[in-house]
């Protein structure tokens, strides 16, 4: 146990650990993380097996990296705990007996003689220290008076607050890793989905994309309603950077898209021989619509693609999920005879790629409208570690500002009555900003000397 404490209270170990964690982190950015085995094999050849065995390909989640972090946490905890008592006493504890010899060994010191009586000389020095916002404790004994003056006492503990914050952050990371959950909810407008393991559901009421006047997406907005036990309880707009928080879950606008599997299409049927004929039908792919005309009895849409392209082997594909070149595969029947079969392009109304080489068909089609429902992907995150992270971050930040911008100062003064004079010896120390402290110290004791 003693050896354990000794090892883990050592700052040398801290330095070794900081170096190791740093090197490991560098390695993790040089080797791409979390790719497929095939990709590693292609990239690193025979080394890829070794890399995977050492978990270098998922380094930040590997046992040995987490082990390093655990050692680091232990180191911080033991190291701070073993030093905290002494630092606390330095900041807030009662004055310990000071001896003149000890004070004279200090770097920042002053020595002079003052006029008696002792109490008056002591009051004068204490007054000067108080004027500079020191808190003064006095200890009197026969023929001797000791002053302990301290200011910005919390500064001594700045580094402990930082270290405590780091422990809280590490604990938060652990909690996130063990208990954090996230899942995607892909919802069409009007659709409701249960949030996994949350006990409530989410309905997407509306999804909007806002654009800048110059083009380019400005924002994605999902209007969602939380439903608990079948009852809507709140409706909010979820935007990028503005998640919805509800019962320990956060919902983020993650992705969006259009559901092109079943768009509503509006087709206009025309006859080449009769310019005044135009008949509109609305249908979805796979549906048929009756027209009831002697030349066209019904229309069927066999397929739809939002971004028509002819791929390998002459097969029709969609290049993307954006409606860049929407096309519908349309068939028209005249009784039992097929009068038309071909792709109809929304962007090229005069061009129909006819099937079956039947030449010019007497019919023509215009794809006037194509509407697909939007779907929005919301990411549901439940992260019980996050609050630890914010608390830890606040502690680290506060501790850093204490350590660097709130430098503690301490002045000890011993006044002794000897041969009808009062001998004054003072010494000081500061956590930071030695030069400024030395200047302050010199000014205080120059004044004290002058007033004596």
């Amino acid at each position, binding site marked *: 146990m003693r050896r354990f404490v000794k090892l883990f209270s050592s*700052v*040398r170990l*801290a*330095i070794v650990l*900081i*170096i190791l*964690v*740093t090197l490991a*982190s*560098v390695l*993790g*950015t040089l080797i791409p*993380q979390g790719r497929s085995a095939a990709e590693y094999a292609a990239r690193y050849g025979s080394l890829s097996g070794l890399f995977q065995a050492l978990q270098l390909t998922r380094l*930040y989640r590997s046992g040995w990296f987490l082990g390093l972090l655990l050692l680091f946490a232990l180191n911080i905890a033991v190291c701070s705990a073993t030093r905290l008592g002494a630092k606390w006493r330095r900041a807030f504890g009662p004055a310990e007996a000071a001896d003149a010899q000890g004070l004279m060994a200090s770097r920042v010191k002053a020595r002079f003689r003052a006029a008696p009586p002792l109490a008056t000389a002591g009051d004068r020095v204490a007054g000067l220290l108080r004027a500079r916002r020191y808190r003064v404790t006095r200890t009197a004994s026969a023929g001797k008076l000791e002053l302990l003056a301290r200011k910005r006492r919390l500064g001594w503990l700045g580094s402990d607050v930082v270290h405590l914050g780091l422990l809280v952050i590490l604990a938060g*990371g652990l909690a*996130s890793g063990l208990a954090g959950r*996230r899942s995607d909810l892909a919802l069409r407008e009007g659709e409701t989905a249960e949030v996994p393991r949350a006990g409530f559901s989410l309905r997407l009421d509306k999804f909007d994309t806002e654009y*800048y006047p*110059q083009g*380019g*997406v*400005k*924002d*994605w907005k999902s209007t969602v309603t939380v439903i608990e036990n079948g009852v809507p309880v709140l409706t909010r707009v979820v*935007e*990028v*950077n*503005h*998640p919805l928080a509800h019962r320990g879950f*956060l919902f*983020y*606008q*993650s992705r969006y898209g259009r559901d092109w599997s079943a768009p509503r299409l509006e087709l206009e049927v025309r006859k080449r021989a009769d310019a005044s004929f135009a008949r509109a039908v609305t249908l979805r792919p796979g549906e048929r619509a009756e027209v009831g005309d002697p030349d066209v009895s019904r229309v069927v849409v066999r397929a739809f693609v939002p971004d028509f392209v002819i791929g390998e082997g002459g097969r029709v594909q969609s290049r993307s999920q954006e409606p860049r070149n929407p096309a519908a595969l349309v068939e028209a029947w005249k009784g039992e005879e097929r009068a038309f079969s071909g792709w109809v392009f929304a962007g090229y109304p005069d061009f129909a790629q006819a099937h079956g080489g039947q030449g010019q068909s007497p019919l023509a089609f215009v794809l006037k409208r194509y509407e697909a429902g939007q779907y929005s992907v919301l*990411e549901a*995150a439940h*992260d019980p570690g*996050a609050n630890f*992270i*914010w608390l830890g*971050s606040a502690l*680290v*930040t506060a501790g*850093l*500002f204490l350590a*660097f*911008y709130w430098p503690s100062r301490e002045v000890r003064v011993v006044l002794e009555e000897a041969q009808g004079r009062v001998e004054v010896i003072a010494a000081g120390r500061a956590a*930071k900003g030695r030069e400024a402290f030395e200047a302050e110290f010199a000014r205080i004791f120059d004044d004290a000397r002058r007033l004596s």
Partner: protein
Amino acid sequence: MTEPSLFTAAFALYAAALIAYFAALFARRESWDRAGLGLAAAGLAVHTAALVLRTVSSGHAPFTNMYESLSFLSWAVVVALIVFGRKPRVARLGPYLMLIVVALVALASSPLMPKEAAPLVPALQSYWLWLHVSVTLLGEAFFAVAFVASALFLAAGAEEKRRRLDALAYRAVAVGFPLFTLGGLVFGMVWAYRAWGRYWAWDPKEVWSLITWFVFALYLHTRIVMGWKGKRSAWIAIAGFLAALFTYFGVNYLLAGLHSYA
């Protein structure tokens, strides 16, 4: 005045400050040093106006592309120079810091950097962006001061001068470290949490910020607790600044990740 012409004017003033500083260095004239500082301060004022103008006209914080962030980083380095370089005899950091400023401004002005203020993609529309980038870059500017002081330390001969440079480097780290921690790590995590739902994703840019932070933590601990000073400290501060530079430039061009737009 328009933003580009103000920016060019600031560039000219910085270049003049650089010349004055180097003239002071070689001619050993203190008055030219003060001229350098004055020109740098004038450049800073004009540069500030350029940044404000850009913010007003684009309607968002001036840190959304490389040109804007380089411009802000050079601005921050001038601020750090003025904070630390007021006492000319302290260290003569002026010429070298100004060299960094002029290099950054030249890089920002180069045709490689697109200058248009593009409309912001949704993920960047957050006030956390302001806080995250501005505080981080300000922290890094003080690391630049520590870097210059440490490099000069390694080059310097006189004991008194070395002592001052060593103390100056430490003071710069003491200012930069809390700022970098707050901006780079804390605000970064808050923003990531708001935008992507996770405060930490081990994205290469995040990891490199962490590495930079570890190097400076190493600097502090070896110094305070093991009493390292001088040479070894100086090398650690130099390594820390190089890590910060790599986080800033290298990660974007050499490693891929979520931060690809920033």
